């Protein structure tokens, strides 16, 4: 397996205050990896920097991000997006003034010519609730429905790398369960995925490798088996 994504020594600041102090992370094609850590430790900041959404004015201070063999740090977000990275951001960020359907079709793409691309029908199959709400505006959805829409929207771009930032927040247990199963199926189909979430047990079952950050630094990295075995790590870094 070749490395699809490689982050080296990433340092990021919001204005004067630096929050990432050298994050390293590699992700092979077809792999599912997680980023774990307590609240405010820098998970979302890492993901956003990856997507080119690093905060102005300081932004990325140092580090390299290679994606599919190209250096993408400092590129504008739209180029990164077209390059095949899709983000399900925390806080959903769906387009309030677009209908559910529009939210999904506006950015639909199959740039890599995937054999079985995500389509409107497949998304509606995954989230029947969205099919019922097709014509509603984004801001008329319930919190969970919005979350489904944010996931669907990212899938519709058929990304090479799918990034989920707390994508199960606010979802009912049943739906959450479906998301895990869907991610497992995607993994089987070779979808590379980077996940941030709080359900560690489920993530261990789902992902190959895990990275834990604490105050903007990587403090632990390992496989699912290693994490499963070491509950000290859970307790120390995740507060479980």
């Amino acid at each position, binding site marked *: 397996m070749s490395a699809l994504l490689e982050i080296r020594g990433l340092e990021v600041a919001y204005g004067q205050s630096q929050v990432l102090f050298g994050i390293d992370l590699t992700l092979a094609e077809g792999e599912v990896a997680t980023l774990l850590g307590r*609240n*405010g430790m820098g998970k979302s900041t890492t993901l956003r920097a990856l997507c080119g959404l690093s905060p102005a004015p300081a932004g990325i201070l140092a580090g390299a991000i290679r994606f599919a063999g190209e250096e993408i740090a400092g590129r504008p977000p739209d180029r990164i997006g077209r390059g095949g990275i899709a983000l399900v951001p925390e806080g959903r960020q769906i387009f309030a003034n677009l209908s559910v359907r529009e939210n999904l079709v506006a950015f639909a793409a199959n740039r890599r010519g995937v054999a079985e691309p995500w389509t409107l029908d497949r998304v509606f199959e995954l989230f029947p*609730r969205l099919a019922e709400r097709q014509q509603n505006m984004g801001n*008329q959805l*319930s*919190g*969970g429905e919005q979350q489904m829409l944010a996931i669907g929207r990212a899938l519709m771009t058929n990304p090479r790398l799918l990034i989920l930032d707390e994508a199960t927040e606010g979802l009912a247990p*049943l739906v959450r369960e479906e998301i895990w199963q869907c991610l497992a199926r995607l993994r089987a189909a070779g979808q590379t995925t980077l996940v941030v979430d709080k359900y560690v047990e489920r993530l261990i079952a789902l992902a190959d490798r895990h990275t834990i950050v604490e105050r903007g630094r990587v403090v632990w990295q390992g496989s699912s088996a290693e994490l499963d075995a070491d509950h000290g790590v859970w307790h120390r870094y995740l*507060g479980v």
Partner: protein
Amino acid sequence: MSNEANGGLLAVAGVSRHFGGVHALSGVSLAVAEGEVHALIGPNGAGKTTLIHQLSGAQTPDAGTIRFAGEDVTRLPMHARVARGIARSWQVTNVFARLTALDNVALAVQGRQRDWGGSFRFWAPVDKERAIVDEAATWLAEVGLAGRESTVAGSLAHGEQRQLELALALATKPRLLLLDEPMAGMGPEESERVVALIEHLGRKVTLLLVEHDMDAVFRLADRISVLVGGRLICTGLPDEVRAHPEVRKAYLGEEMA
């Protein structure tokens, strides 16, 4: 439980609300007794947030009545309901993004003080009112944001904003607190802290809790109501609800139980 006679502290009768063709709530009736922790669960889009909106006054129902402590509050504006002791938190974070965490909570504390003109005071500098500031700091500590007082709310991490959201609601010292997914976005440790906080509060404040975190719900709730498709399908003790076949089918799934 002194208000039992008129249906509890909060008595919701036949409340309906629709948006265009969507019937978000259809004839929901529910009673919450004083001092109880009452959980409200249900699938996404079941109408939980919509019900909170009707109770808090962010929206008014198309039909039905809402009585609080015996008084009909169905048509009261939000601020009047807060004055009577109903406070809420939002599912989507809703704080004063450009004020410091402490300023955020201080506003909540100040809003509670309604003696002589309340905040229609034009002269005395509020900075001199130590009591407000001190109390605000206490609330921040309570939700686990000690040390973050002077951080601007907008630059708190997502989970921290959720904690601040809770502090704001608590600082109004409500009789009835409506919490819409307070644990969403919080890590396990923070969730644990909030659960403990709610357990502690439960003795003094009546709580209506909307939450998808079932561990928390079953640990905290005295009673649970289940909304599905805008209708209340059951209300009962946690164990009854857990065993309810329809609830398992529509919401919990099999292994959850």
